[in-house]
């Protein structure tokens, strides 16, 4: 499903405002959102996912107004992966994934056979099947991050929004998560907010740059990726070196 934002505006009482005149996310593929801290990456994802209400404008998902969708319809279309959990309740990993199936079971959230299949599938994709009975506080932060992604996969939505899925992870876990994302890219639209320009460059099919709440650039295919635009977005110098983006120090 493609996502279109038209004249979306949102102002916080802190003074920060997000203004997007027009932004399209094509169906399928991975879009990376780049931008310095406080540029509105997370806000943009939260607005698309329906967690934050925006002041004016339209967001269309597959041609449908997001404001006219019910909570459940939206939850069956978009899943959101937060950068982490603020507090870890004393529940098991499996219970976390059950939350992903809530839009399909509703009410008491009693799961049926299909729901359990989806959960098992998501656990397998994220290589967490052995740990499904672990409590959340027994998981490492990499496992927890994968668990959050597994929840989004179990939610079985066309669109997955991920907010900083690589923050605070060691390289091995980062590569593992990149592999998970690549394994689901064929049938889902994925939007990532990322800090690591190298990962974005390597992983994404298209890139969006945000600065101070406004669009800075959009590259809708890999050919158009422009390292100079990224440099001026951050105000630093990146160099392409054997296909990798390397930050240079002066």
């Amino acid at each position, binding site marked *: 499903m493609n996502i279109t934002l038209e004249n979306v505006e949102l102002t916080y009482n802190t003074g920060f405002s997000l203004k997007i005149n027009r932004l399209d996310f094509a169906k399928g593929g991975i879009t990376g959102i780049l931008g310095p801290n406080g540029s509105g990456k997370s806000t943009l994802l939260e607005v698309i*996912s329906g967690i934050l209400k925006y002041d004016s404008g339209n967001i269309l998902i597959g041609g449908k107004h997001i404001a006219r969708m019910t*909570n459940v319809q939206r*939850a069956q279309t978009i899943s959101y992966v937060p950068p982490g959990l603020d507090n870890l309740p004393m529940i098991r990993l*499996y*219970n976390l994934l059950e939350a992903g199936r809530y839009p399909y079971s509703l009410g008491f*959230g009693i799961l049926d056979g299909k729901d359990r299949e989806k959960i098992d599938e998501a656990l397998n994709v994220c290589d967490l099947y052995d*740990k*499904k*009975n672990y409590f959340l506080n027994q998981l490492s932060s990499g496992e927890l991050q994968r668990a959050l992604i597994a929840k989004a996969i179990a939610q079985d939505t066309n669109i997955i929004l991920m907010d900083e899925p690589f923050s605070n992870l060691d390289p091995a876990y980062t590569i593992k998560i990149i592999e998970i994302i690549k394994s689901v890219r064929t049938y889902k639209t994925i939007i990532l907010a990322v800090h690591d320009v190298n990962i974005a460059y390597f992983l994404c099919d298209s890139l969006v740059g945000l600065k101070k709440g406004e669009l800075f650039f959009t590259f809708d295919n890999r050919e158009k990726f422009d390292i100079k635009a990224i440099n001026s977005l951050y105000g630093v110098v990146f160099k392409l070196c054997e296909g990798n983006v390397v930050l240079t120090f002066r």
Partner: protein
Amino acid sequence: MQNPQKAIKQVTYSRILIYLLVSLIFSIAVLSLSLSFGGKFINPFEFFSSENAVFMSLRLPRILADFMVGAGLSIVGCSFQTYFRNPLADPFILGIAGAAAVGVAVSLYIGVSGFIPTQILSLSFALATILFVYWAAGGLTSVTANSLILVGVGLNFFFTSIITFFNSVLSENFTKDLLMWYLGSTVFLDIDLVLISLLLVILLSSILYMQSGKLNVYLLGEAFAINSGVDIRKFSIIIYVGGSLITSVIVAMCGAIGFVGIIIPHIVKIIFGLDHRINMILCFFIGGCFVVVIDTFFKTVFFPYEVPIGAVTAIIGTPFFIYILRRRI
């Protein structure tokens, strides 16, 4: 509990039904056993004989009221702890007990000494407070768990100082009556009134229980709940208004009986886990039975002295709670 090898038990409708039935049968057993105790032991087979009719007419409303207090406050405490993300949240945290106490104080002051008018006055004060807290916390547009709890706690202090002020300027008798009310009592209640409020509490508790699935999702965070299709505003209103109504009814009937609403949910959650579909049922029935047993125990052991129930729940409950807490750490 933290044993990852232990396989997770899936919650199914039949499992919920089993929990419900087992707790129901257990509760009925506890309640009927409690009817036997008091100043005079009455054999369960002689409950309906005419010579015991008087005692039964005294004990039945009392035990049902005990059950209502424990069950209602526990289930409200259980959902409030999750909803407010605060282990210290209890049914009285939103200022309802304070409001009801002010209602009682006013009725004592203006002299409506009747039993029912006092309850109506304290109930209406509590209901007005529910609306006020909701309005002050931001109304329909921007009410959040945090703003509710802040307004509630602030209001609690306000009511406490009103009561203290009343206490110091009015006579000694008044102070005594109010203290008596605060300690809570389930003694002189009419069976009709108890049955009506018990039904009301059961009804409202089932509405709260309908939210158990959403509470499970909400446990992981508000953003998480929204992304799982929970209409957070509707959910908030049901938890807040439903919980507050239960509390208001109980407080107006039996006074501010503390402790049950905060400790029973913790004990149940520690032992049975955080799945609200299970632990709300258990909170309801265990909380109810706890108060019934405590009240029956104290009234039997100290007979003929009436020990105010609000004062003694903590005597038994706290050591047990600390034991559970220590065992789990």
